[in-house]
């Protein structure tokens, strides 16, 4: 029997705005399955995003949804979670939104280790504005604002999150749909800041400029470049050249979660 996604989708809100071949829909389905697996009460779940194609995701889902300003998802979400720690908080958005204009909020939410799950769709480009390079556009690639090839080095989002103090960091791709919900489930179950980076594709503004002839070519690339972390342990540096690791990249269950820490502050202030 087909999976019932419809009960999670707001009536009348589809079709979505995403282009044919875009991976964001795959991620959204993964998120729905993960929320179902975790039996999240949608009334008690806030889904918070910034601005961009990926940030349109919350509007389709039946929950408390908050489509904020560009880059600010993690900061709004922090306010929601601090004020009502019993709520489940999920952030979603793209690479430009989360790590360029929103980079400061991203790293500090990781540092605090506040209990939320951030699904970051990294498609290497600013799609909604027509394909300008992001902090994740590979060096040398073409974007509408890198007509001679991108001179910028990239952010490795997962490494950034680990370095900043997130306590659960995982990566997969839009070409691995089953792994998406498995990792989001682990992220939701993790008490602390969980970053799920999904390497995604944008055939319209990134693929076409960078010689991917079809969506299939882009999916093949994702499959070819993704190396599960266990498999990578047996590979040489040479073999790993041009690849990225997938799976649970980092997990720390010792670092205190932020709202729990603040509950201790309240106890102290109240003289307990």
């Amino acid at each position, binding site marked *: 029997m087909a999976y019932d996604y419809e009960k999670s989708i707001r009536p009348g809100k589809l079709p979505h705005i995403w282009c044919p071949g875009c991976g964001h829909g795959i991620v959204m389905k993964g998120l729905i399955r993960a929320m179902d697996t975790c039996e999240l009460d949608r009334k008690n779940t806030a889904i918070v995003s910034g601005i961009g194609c990926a940030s349109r995701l919350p509007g389709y889902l039946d929950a408390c949804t908050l489509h904020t300003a560009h880059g600010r998802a993690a900061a*709004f979400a922090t306010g929601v979670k601090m*004020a009502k720690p019993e709520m489940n908080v999920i952030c979603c958005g793209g690479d430009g939104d989360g790590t360029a204009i929103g980079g400061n909020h991203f790293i500090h939410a990781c540092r605090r280790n506040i209990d939320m799950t951030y699904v970051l769709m990294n498609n290497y480009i600013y799609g909604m504005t027509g394909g300008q390079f992001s902090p994740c556009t590979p060096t040398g690639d073409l974007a509408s604002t890198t007509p001679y090839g991108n001179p910028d080095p990239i952010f490795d989002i997962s490494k950034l999150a680990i370095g900043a103090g997130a306590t659960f960091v995982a990566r997969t791709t839009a070409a691995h749909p089953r792994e998406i919900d498995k990792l989001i489930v682990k992220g939701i179950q993790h008490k602390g800041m969980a970053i799920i980076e999904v390497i995604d594709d944008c055939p319209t503004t990134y693929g076409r400029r960078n010689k991917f002839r079809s969506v299939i070519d882009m999916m093949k690339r994702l499959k070819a470049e993704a190396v599960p972390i266990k498999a990578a342990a047996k590979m040489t540096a040479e073999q790993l050249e041009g690849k990225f690791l997938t799976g649970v990249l980092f997990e720390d269950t010792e670092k205190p979660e932020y709202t729990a820490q603040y509950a201790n502050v309240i106890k102290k202030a109240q003289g307990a």
Partner: protein
Amino acid sequence: MAKKVALLQGNEACAQGALYAGCTFFGGYPITPSTEVAEVLSVELPKIGGKFIQMEDEIAAMASVIGASLTGAKAITATSGPGVSLKQELIGYACIAEVPCVIINVMRGGPSTGMPTGPGQSDVMQAMWGTHGDHAAIALVPDSCQEIFSETVRAFNLAEKYRMPVQVLYDEIVGHMRERIEFPEPGELEVFDREAPGVGPEDYKPYDSTKGQVPPLAAFGSEYKYHVTGLNKADDGFPTTKASLVDAEERRQIDKVLDNIADIESYEEYLTEDADVVIWAYGSTSRSARYAVNELRKEGIKAGLFRPITLWPFPEKRTAELAKQAKAIVVAEMNLGQMVLEVERVAKGNCVVVHEGRVDGDPLNPGQIMTKVKEVL
């Protein structure tokens, strides 16, 4: 029973006013000369189970306040000019998404870093026009520590009642001055709590104008699921580009303030009944102006003081009446000419309007104002 009294700094009075109003969330970022508001609330909020968070920057502070407010908390941030500049995009977000919140701006000199420890009144136009797009604004300008307390309470009331950001602006002089405060008893000052949705979750629309100019806001994490966005939206909260819906929503959000000026407006007058010259001044400058009025009266000059407490929406009606009655209005403010533009606009040439200002970090003193009054008469 005698009232509880204390010697409080303006910023401390602000924090106490917030607590009186039922504030349970502060999100901020350190900036002179407002930091004491954060410091007091970091001590007091956890005592009542409230939340204090120092965010990574000014923008994040504003974002956290909006997020917290959506869960039903009365939320506040405190900053100064540079911080308000950074917050402007999200102040606009709170306007269009109609999320109640209070923003304290302890004004210093500017532009840019300016004179962080010196007073200024140069953010008064920013309070109205700082964020992009058409919108209404409410800004309050107390002139004493007691009034900072009561106006902070009123700011929360107006924010919750009209479902919008409300700014309280006071200059560094009032913020760092210490005065005797009488704490109002519980119930002595009005405390307005957010209206309940009034309909069940299935029928709830966050911007349903059939429920009045200010549709009730449900809390995240209650029984209500809804969507909030900074895009132009229809009554159900979802984005729309339909011209008639966009137009109606934009106008409602402005009219909810302009149609309720009688409720929002507040000002004080001193010896204006027979005044030939009205000194139009707010914040600490109004204290110099009051002294100037007394001295001028001793010299036989019929001077009076008009002191707006609600600066935005602008006190148009009464300012226009005074322009018809007086020979001149002297607008005294610690900037090089901001509110004077509004006074000129509504005076419509019925009297002389002149400006007396300074931006060197020193207060506008009574002598300076008196000289200007004598020049103009």
